[in-house]
């Protein structure tokens, strides 16, 4: 990947982070937390996105972010009170901004009307302060949007590193001439951190120069003797006398990215001035920092200084501070510039967070694989030691016990690396709620709990769709319109609650609403109309509630845009089952419904029933098994020439001989000599699987068959047992469905014969 693309990828990753920060900040503001820290965080998020987008010439994004930023700036400056209306507009603006970011990343286009509408809404909030005219044609040739060659010093190796040049310079250039000139004194004393984050004083000075005429003097008072000079230490300070028509905040903005990393004072001299400047050259001409330094040296008038100077100039690499090749780069930067692949805007806000690193997922997966092998190996070792007849109390056996604890702990810790908080899924929901609420004309409040609950990344990725669906359903079908709610004695605003928690080794996610609950007579009637149940079937309330999970069931009387295309809850149920999870519903008329999802913490391990089939060991996923039983001779009935059913509490369930099905045996197993596992497959189809014996329940590590071979019908995956051998994991859905396929085939045969 070319370096620019790589930076771009990083930029978009950071955008995602900024966007989520933006949203959570705005939500906090909605809750009344309008302290400057929150507002600043929100502002920073938008500003960083704009800055980065400018560097990549993502113009629609820049344009929108700029409007947004301007409004936020007013809030920050206290000119605009962040009341509920304002925050609501901003939340929607954040959604559009997210769309812009995604459009820029994936090459799509944002609906122009929507973007315009919100831009207008934002501008309207700005009230009396109309925006600086940022017409698109102006943007096209805005110098700030390009990679500016840094003329301040020799720019070897700088070009890409400073990709994230703040945009402010370019925009400011476009503003009309202001009123009176004022003189400001800016005192700047960088700390080490400033250089460590790949910022540079020279650039700041140049930014200042863009604001007006400047006089720069350097203060080398703290510069130690060469022998004591720490190459990575910041010693120099600058005093800038700036004559400009800009406000203090404009000047402050120059130092936006180094906030906190330098001592900065800006004082107004209040003397309109047209003092001659030190440097008459135009903006793009480099600052002659050497001249400044020499001037400073002259000011100090210390005799040894000249000697030191000579010494320094003669000195090679160790003190590149004054080396002629890098006049304006203080040593720390010289050291870090080469390594500064990161955007400078990582400089702010990061300090308070916990230290994290980005790791390639493949490396983590490799580690997980290895630990899985370690666990297997440990189990094998333990088995061999037991077989060798070493007493339990011996040192070897006790050492093995310790090893077992250690490996368990390692396994848990490694799994925890892949675990992520469900926050990333939950965070998408406020937007969804806003949109669905707007479409249905309902008032909805979303309450989320347990956002920090961690679950495996693969599970997280596949949770979004089911949760999205359930929340849509909760708003569309569950909650009533405001007037209906008021009539029922509730508040006009409905609540949808989304929560996550760990419970006995699984993650439990609940989506509940305080709406009208499931309308059971109506559900029942629809199920009858659609032929899903018999007219006279006797169903408990729970059974009726569960009807909504049946394929093809849809309660929406009019098919709306939001939900009710008839691919509703059955799809949710199937995808949850696909994750090895279960879904349940409880509902109380007039008080609302709760959907409860229970999922395994990871997809890498599975709770399995280990069974024997003709000397082979197979694993059946425990989630699919309803019960196991030993068939009695009178319960098994032949139906047709070669098919059997088994009566389980007066219900006839097809009996499938797993061994025969997988081709392990040719003569069918005598049902009374085996064990039947009652399983439920996709769409609720049940079957009894005949196996020879049950060995026990075990957690197994899932190994893909496709990685080195290909998919095998009837087999979901493989695993490795304690003895080191591979065991196959049954694909229950496939086995149940295979029976139907065979039936269809034999039906076709019969039809052809008849």
């Amino acid at each position: 990947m070319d370096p620019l693309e790589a930076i771009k990828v990083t930029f978009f990753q950071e955008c995602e982070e900024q966007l989520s920060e933006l949203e959570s900040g705005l939500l906090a503001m909605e809750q009344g937390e309008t302290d400057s820290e929150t507002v600043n965080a929100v502002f920073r998020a938008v500003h960083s996105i704009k800055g980065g987008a400018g560097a990549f010439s993502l113009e629609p994004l820049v344009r929108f972010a700029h409007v947004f930023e301007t409004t936020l700036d007013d809030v920050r400056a206290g000119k605009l009170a962040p009341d509920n209306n304002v925050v609501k507009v901003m939340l929607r603006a954040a959604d559009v901004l997210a769309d812009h970011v995604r459009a820029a990343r994936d090459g799509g286009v944002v609906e122009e009307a929507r973007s315009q509408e919100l831009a207008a809404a934002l501008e309207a909030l700005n009230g009396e302060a109309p925006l600086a005219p940022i017409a698109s044609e102006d943007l096209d040739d805005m110098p700030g949007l390009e990679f500016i060659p840094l003329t301040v010093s020799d720019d070897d190796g700088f070009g890409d590193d400073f990709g994230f040049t703040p945009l402010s310079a370019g925009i400011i250039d476009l503003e009309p001439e202001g009123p009176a000139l004022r003189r400001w004194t800016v005192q700047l004393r960088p700390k080490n951190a400033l250089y460590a984050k790949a910022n540079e004083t020279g650039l700041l000075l140049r930014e200042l120069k863009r604001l007006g005429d400047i006089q720069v003097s350097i203060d080398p008072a703290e510069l130690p003797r060469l022998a004591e000079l720490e190459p990575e230490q910041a010693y120099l300070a600058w005093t800038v006398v700036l004559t400009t028509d800009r406000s203090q905040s404009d000047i402050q903005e120059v130092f936006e990215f180094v906030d906190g990393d330098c001592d900065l004072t800006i004082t107004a001299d209040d003397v309109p001035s047209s003092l001659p400047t030190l440097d008459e050259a135009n903006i793009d001409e480099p600052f002659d920092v050497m001249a400044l330094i020499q001037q400073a040296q002259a000011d100090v008038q210390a005799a040894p200084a000249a000697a030191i100077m000579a010494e320094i100039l003669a000195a090679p690499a160790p003190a590149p501070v004054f080396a002629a090749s890098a006049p304006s780069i203080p040593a720390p930067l010289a050291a870090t510039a080469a390594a500064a692949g990161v955007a400078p805007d990582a400089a702010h806000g990061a300090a308070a967070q916990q230290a994290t690193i980005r790791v390639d997922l493949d490396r983590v997966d490799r580690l997980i694989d290895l630990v899985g092998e370690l666990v297997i190996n440990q189990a094998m070792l333990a088995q061999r030691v037991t077989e060798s007849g070493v007493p339990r109390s011996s040192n070897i056996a006790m050492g093995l016990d310790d090893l077992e604890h250690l490996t368990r702990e390692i396994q848990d810790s490694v799994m925890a690396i892949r675990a992520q908080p469900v926050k990333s899924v939950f965070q998408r929901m406020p937007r969804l709620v806003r949109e669905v609420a707007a479409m249905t004309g309902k008032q909805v409040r979303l309450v989320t709990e347990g956002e920090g609950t961690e679950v495996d990344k693969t599970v997280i990725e596949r949770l979004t769709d089911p949760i999205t669906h359930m929340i849509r359903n909760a708003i569309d079908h569950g909650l009533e319109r405001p007037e209906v709610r008021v009539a029922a004695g509730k508040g006009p605003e409905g609540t949808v609650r989304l929560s996550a928690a760990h419970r006995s080794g699984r993650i439990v996610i609940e989506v509940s609403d305080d709406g009208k609950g499931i309308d059971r007579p109506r559900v029942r009637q629809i199920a009858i109309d659609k032929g899903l149940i018999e007219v006279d079937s006797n169903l408990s309330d729970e059974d009726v509630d569960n009807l909504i999970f049946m394929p093809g069931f849809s309660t929406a009387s009019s098919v709306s845009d939001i939900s009710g295309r008839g691919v509703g809850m059955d799809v949710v149920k199937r995808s949850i089952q696909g994750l090895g999870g279960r879904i349940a519903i409880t509902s109380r008329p007039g008080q609302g419904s709760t959907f409860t999802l229970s999922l395994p913490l990871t997809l890498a391990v599975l709770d399995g029933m280990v069974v024997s089939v003709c000397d082979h060991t197979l694993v059946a996923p425990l989630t699919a098994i309803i019960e196991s039983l030993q068939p009695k001779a009178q319960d098994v009935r032949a139906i047709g020439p070669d098919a059997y059913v088994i009566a389980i509490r007066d219900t006839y369930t097809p009996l499938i001989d797993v061994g025969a099905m997988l081709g392990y045996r040719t003569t069918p197993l005598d049902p009374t000599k085996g064990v039947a596992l009652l399983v439920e497959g996709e769409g609720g189809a049940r079957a009894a699987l005949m196996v020879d014996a049950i060995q026990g329940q075990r957690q197994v590590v899932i190994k893909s068959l496709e990685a080195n071979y290909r998919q095998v019908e009837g087999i979901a995956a493989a695993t490795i047992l304690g003895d080191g051998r591979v065991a196959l994991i049954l694909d229950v859905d496939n086995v149940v469905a295979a029976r139907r396929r065979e039936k269809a085939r034999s039906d076709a045969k019969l039809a052809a014969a008849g």
Partner: protein
Amino acid sequence: MTPMTTSSSNSALRELISFQIGAQEFCVDIMSVREIRGWTPATPLPRTPVFVRGVINLRGAVLPIVDLGSRLGLQMTEPTERHVIIVTRIEEQLVGLLVDAVCDIITVRDDQIQSTPDVASDLVQQFVKGILSMEGRMISLIYLERVLPDREAEAA
């Protein structure tokens, strides 16, 4: 072993691992061989061609075992502990080849590999990339990419 002249023609040298199945000798490029290990009982897979003997645990990975003799239309191998699995990398997949015994490593020039004689068997045409003569022995170079069943389907 095999001494080669270094200043030979413009064709590149390559190293091959040769092995025995029954009375015949075959070889594969050494670069595609990951390791060689003894036979361990495989877990049979349902609904697979007879030449796929099943899968084994290769340090945590599930490795399919192809009975190369059966694949080439020779006799089915009755594996014992003396049989050998050559773990090869075929594109992105690892596949174990069950053979009778590994013979040696041979170095040949590309131009020493003769094209497959036009004999009747389709299987030979399909799986033998070329043959080479080595001290009076005839060694067939296996077309590894066609060993797995789904690749066979693709080729067809």
